[in-house]
């Protein structure tokens, strides 16, 4: 399926180039290269570059709690958020320390509160802990490290999700295809005006 999508991407880009009158060999190469990278990422189970097996399991669960699957679309784990974080941590010791420290903090708190490590806790136990660290208003010497870590995990999970194919589809972004003439659908204009203080004309 992802291969199909990739092929469609190439065609889309090529079509755009064609009507614009240029898609040089080099530009085409550029697209092929990117698609090849994508294919590699899609092939087989992912082996974390940085995290150990336990950290990886915890991270996968955490990202899916931050952006869960729902009736519209898959969640952050399926969108590659853990892979994104793993890759960057593998390249950046400062970021890696934020994640290994934060994941260890989560485990210690889960053990203290529920007698289980975070990944082994029930969904209710997991969300009970996240409900404490997902809000700045709960900041305290006790929760501070968890709150700081969760801000990192949340923003990077959100970034990974909404820069993925499923995240972009979830938002409904329709662009990056090119047009011969710029037009805005009338119904969109009417929708906004009707709801605005100006009213539909």
């Amino acid at each position, binding site marked *: 399926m992802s291969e199909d999508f990739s092929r469609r991407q190439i065609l889309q880009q090529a079509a755009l180039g064609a009507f*614009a009158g*240029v898609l040089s060999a080099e530009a085409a190469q550029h697209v092929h290269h990117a698609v090849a*990278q994508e294919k590699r990422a899609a092939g087989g189970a992912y082996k974390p570059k940085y995290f150990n097996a336990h950290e990886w399991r915890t991270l996968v669960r955490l990202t899916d709690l931050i952006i869960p699957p729902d009736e519209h679309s898959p969640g952050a784990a399926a969108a590659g958020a853990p892979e994104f974080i793993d890759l960057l941590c593998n390249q950046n010791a400062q970021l890696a320390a934020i994640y290994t420290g934060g994941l260890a903090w989560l485990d210690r708190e889960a053990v203290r509160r529920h007698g289980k490590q975070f990944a082994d806790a029930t969904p209710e136990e997991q969300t009970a802990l996240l409900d404490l660290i997902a809000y700045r208003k709960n900041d305290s010497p006790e929760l501070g490290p968890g709150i700081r870590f969760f801000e990192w995990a949340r923003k990077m999970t*959100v970034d990974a999700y*909404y*820069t993925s194919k499923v995240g972009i589809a979830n938002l409904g972004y329709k662009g990056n295809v*090119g047009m011969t003439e710029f037009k805005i659908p009338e119904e969109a204009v009417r929708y*906004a005006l009707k709801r605005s203080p*100006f009213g539909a004309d």
Partner: protein
Amino acid sequence: MLQVRRSPKVYDVVVVGSGAGGGTVAHVLTAMGIEVALLEAGPTLNPARDFKEHMWPYQVDHRGAGEGGAWYFGRQQWGYFNAPNGYWEIEGEPYTTAPDTSFRWFRSRILGGRTNHYGRISLRFADYDFKPYSTDGLGSDWPITYEELAPYYDKAEAFIGVSGTKEGIRSAPDGVFQPPPPPRVHEILVKKACDKLRIPCIPARMAILTRPLHGRVACHYCGQCGRGCITASNYSSSQVQIFPALKTGKLTLITEAMVRELIADSEARVTAVSYIDKRSRSERQIRCRTVVLAASACESARILLNSRSPRFPNGLANSSGVVGRFLTDTVGFSLTGHIPALEGLPRHDCDGFGGMHMYIPWWLWDKKNKEFPRGYHIEIGGGFGMPGIGSFHGACRRHEGYGRALKEAIRREYGSFVHLAGRGEMIPNEYTYCEIDPNVVDRWGIPVLRFHFRWSEHELKMVEHMRQTFTEIIETMGGKVVSADRGISTGGTIIHELGTIRMGDDPKSSALNRYCQAHDVKNLFVADAAPFVSNPDKNPTLTINALAWRTAEHLAEELRKGNV
């Protein structure tokens, strides 16, 4: 004794820098059959290879955050997908700032310079912008009038291609326009709010083609001008002026050439340009009949200040002492509002131009007794942009939490924000200038610039006016301000620095005459934004194009007459 390689050939014109100014000069002169050598401090450009146009974020594994997530730590110099070689810091090419000064100097090191990525906003200065001192007693008047520059605005617009509409607004003179694209939904709402507030809101003037021009195809509305345009449907000096000029056979392009100084003879004529060939780290000299500096305002000033000799102890063309002085940047302030009317907007492709389709020109030019002199224009952002790293950090901060609620909030709010950015006029002041740092050289051995920068009360008051006005516009749309800059922008960060080699009729208070020709050195011209006498609330690029065109024609005439 060190052997310096000198070109056997004497070029009619050597141009230093390949951005809007250098590109225009190279185009105009080679079209007249004059032989030009163009020196660029960076590499050449290959749009098909270098531009990341149409790439999705998921086509790179770091999604645009850069190696190791540099973006998250404020260490990414420039957007990953943006057109290449723009830098706030260049390794080995530092600059310094005076104690207590905040100033950032953006530089491009590539053929075409900043025109590869710039905003393409193309606004003529107004008639009164050339007479600031006569209008309010601050700053200085230009030696030329709007009427003198207007024919060159015409030529520049007709050649590079600018879209817009004729409006008859004094602060925003009309030009030679292609038809603009229609407004996006959020821009229609901003316009309605402005109508209510009696503020003009008109189609933006953008150097982007909506019709084919001189072999270039019209825009395909992908919204990615900042990444560089593979089809050259927007203006960049590299694609629109330099590549075609190379085809004339009259242009010699020398890249990786970092100019150190100009060599002058005893008759105050530049005879050669000394540069470091970056590949070999060796000095070369290229001989010339005339030289045009277009290295960017501060870099051009740096070259003159470094061209010191017993005859010119303060640097070349600087008997007035003004070189490096009168530095300004544009006043910047931005604010974002959430507009409930846009929530749940039926999804559609509104990429359009890479930039706004509508803007707000200054509207209080004839109002006396306002709290600050001069004015600003307002740039409008919004719509369903391609999501990227950081796009929803605002949502994370405002909503906090996680899970379904966060996911739904992000989806609901996507596309329902309007960003307003003020761009205002800074008046030159005595505390703001650049000079040679006596203690620091770059990796090429060239002494570097030290910056001094200070905003005055005028600019700080203007920003308060922006904050009030933007809030009013957002609230008139039924929206609510969700974030705003804490205050005025840091000097240099709007990347409109200019004024450092100013023109004027009096050689005691200016370095260049009314044709941007040095008072002291007849065969030396300047064609970037350094000659500007003031920094009106209009983005400088179009005026660089027009002024450089006029300078090039004058230079050609001087060559023809044998005056230089």
